[in-house]
């Protein structure tokens, strides 16, 4: 079942001369883990803003074509309604957190919806535990490290019990260890809870192995869409300037020089295994 469906979708910002993206046809199914990548300015962030109705309701501009998210026509339903189905996590967690304690931040969305107190308690604790931030619940968000803050931002979205979570470069401000923890959390939301994940990302080294699908955008259009292995090993992806994982790149270079490993690897672990296989042949 399609959880997000776009047909001939074209969008132009109020101040824009040409569309930020045009003629996008896209179907995302429940439970998919989709990475959207492509050069800066290709329209990927703009496209994601349609998934919870920020476009057109907040940004204005001209939206043509059709988009349905969780069965709701985005044009006809306000953002607060769509936001109960689709959670958004942004690049810089500092822009998203504002309360004086982690717990209050995570409870904020539910309080606004008038959810009963006991239910809020339950859902906040659940979201804090899944993201590994339960121990931090009484701390002030601004006292936390960037990685901890981003996990709190994810918890506050998770507490709303969304079917889809959209994350726009959620690890770019984090150190590598913090980034890895975020990717682990995102993966478990997808694999353990069945939440559909849409991740906008340039750095694909650590995350590609978790994805079920990679979409590449360029100049406002979807130009590649498919299985991560096929997309990332393709010559088109390299020419567009996609940040191909080092393990996949190594496979490509060796192949050009006549050495074939078993299938393109998406991570260092996979590369290591397939090199060992060749060694023991």
């Amino acid at each position: 079942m399609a959880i997000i469906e776009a047909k001939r979708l074209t969008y132009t910002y109020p101040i824009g001369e040409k569309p930020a993206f045009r003629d996008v046809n896209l179907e995302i199914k429940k439970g998919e883990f989709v990475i959207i990548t492509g050069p800066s300015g290709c329209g990927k962030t703009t496209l994601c803003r349609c998934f919870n109705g920020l476009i057109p309701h907040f940004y204005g501009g001209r939206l043509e074509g059709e988009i349905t998210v969780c069965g709701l026509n985005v044009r006809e339903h306000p953002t607060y309604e769509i936001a109960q189905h689709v959670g958004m996590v942004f690049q810089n967690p500092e822009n998203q957190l504002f309360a004086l304690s982690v717990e209050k931040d995570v409870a904020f969305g539910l309080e606004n919806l008038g959810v009963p107190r006991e239910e809020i308690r339950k859902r906040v604790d659940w979201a804090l535990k899944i993201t590994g931030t339960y121990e931090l619940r009484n701390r002030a968000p601004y006292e936390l490290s960037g990685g901890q803050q981003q996990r709190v931002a994810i918890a506050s979205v998770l507490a709303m019990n969304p079917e889809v979570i959209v994350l726009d470069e959620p690890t770019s401000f984090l150190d590598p260890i913090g980034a890895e923890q975020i990717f682990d959390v995102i993966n478990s939301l997808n694999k353990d809870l069945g939440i559909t994940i849409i991740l906008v990302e340039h750095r694909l080294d650590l995350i590609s192995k978790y994805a079920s699908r990679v979409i590449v955008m360029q100049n406002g259009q979807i130009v590649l869409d498919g299985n991560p292995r096929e997309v990332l090993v393709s010559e088109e992806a390299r020419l567009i300037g996609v940040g191909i994982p080092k393990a996949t790149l190594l496979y490509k270079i060796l192949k050009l020089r006549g050495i074939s490993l078993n299938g393109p690897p998406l991570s260092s672990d996979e590369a290591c295994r397939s090199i060992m296989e060749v060694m023991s042949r």
Partner: protein
Amino acid sequence: MPIDNGSDEQMIVMDDVYFTYPNGVEALMGVNLKIEDGEFVAIMGQNGAGKTTLVKHINGLLKPTKGRVLIDGVETTKVSVATLARKVGLVFQNPDHQLFSETVEEEISFALKNFGYDEKTIKKRVDWALNLLDLNEYRKVSPFMLSGGERKRVALASVLAWDPKIVILDEPTIGQDYRQKERLRQFIVQLNRQGKTVIIVTHDVEFVAECNPTIMLMRQGRIIATGEAREILTNETLVNQASVALPEITKIFKGLEDFGFPRKVIDVYEAADILYERLGGQR
């Protein structure tokens, strides 16, 4: 690592530097370093390790609570930030902390005007910087209309325009796509070849593995290691202590250690050469 030859003539010297913020946070706790003229250094370490605080001491925005910072043999407490700024250009992590003009062109000419250059020179420098960072088409555009990656390039252009001897880039790769990173890398290497001292603060292990600078690893307000990229980035213990990660290529070779492969590999092309040699005959 710069060698202590007893002279204070090295470009940047930090001598047992401590810094405590007014709220009591101890950000630097005994930093000693020497960076020579023309060196290329990457400062790495976990969020909150003190990296940004450290570079703000180089352009005098912050002065040590204890200890000394010397630039070309002169203590930063004895000169104004404006004087230091001619030598030291710092590009902030978040371009929005830096940009304020109505057009990209005005932004880039601002510092030049303040330094008192004549109009002809200013125009030349602005044109040069716009070209260098591929910003020509945005000359008359407000910086705030641009994407995050473009704003970072404007911030960089406005610093390079006045041609400082030392260029410090705080997290230059954030929000940059693969192409722009590749350009940034070539650009940094070129600046360094032209004799500038380049210091980058970054988490981006893959970027550093490709640039091959001297690395200084920070942890909790101290520098815990200094050395070549190949030595530091392949040392798992150090890398873990600083919340950095091994480069992907190093992880692959770590897994292959039992097969007699070298451990200290960080570059994908070098990795391909090694594997080609070993596996070439086994097809």
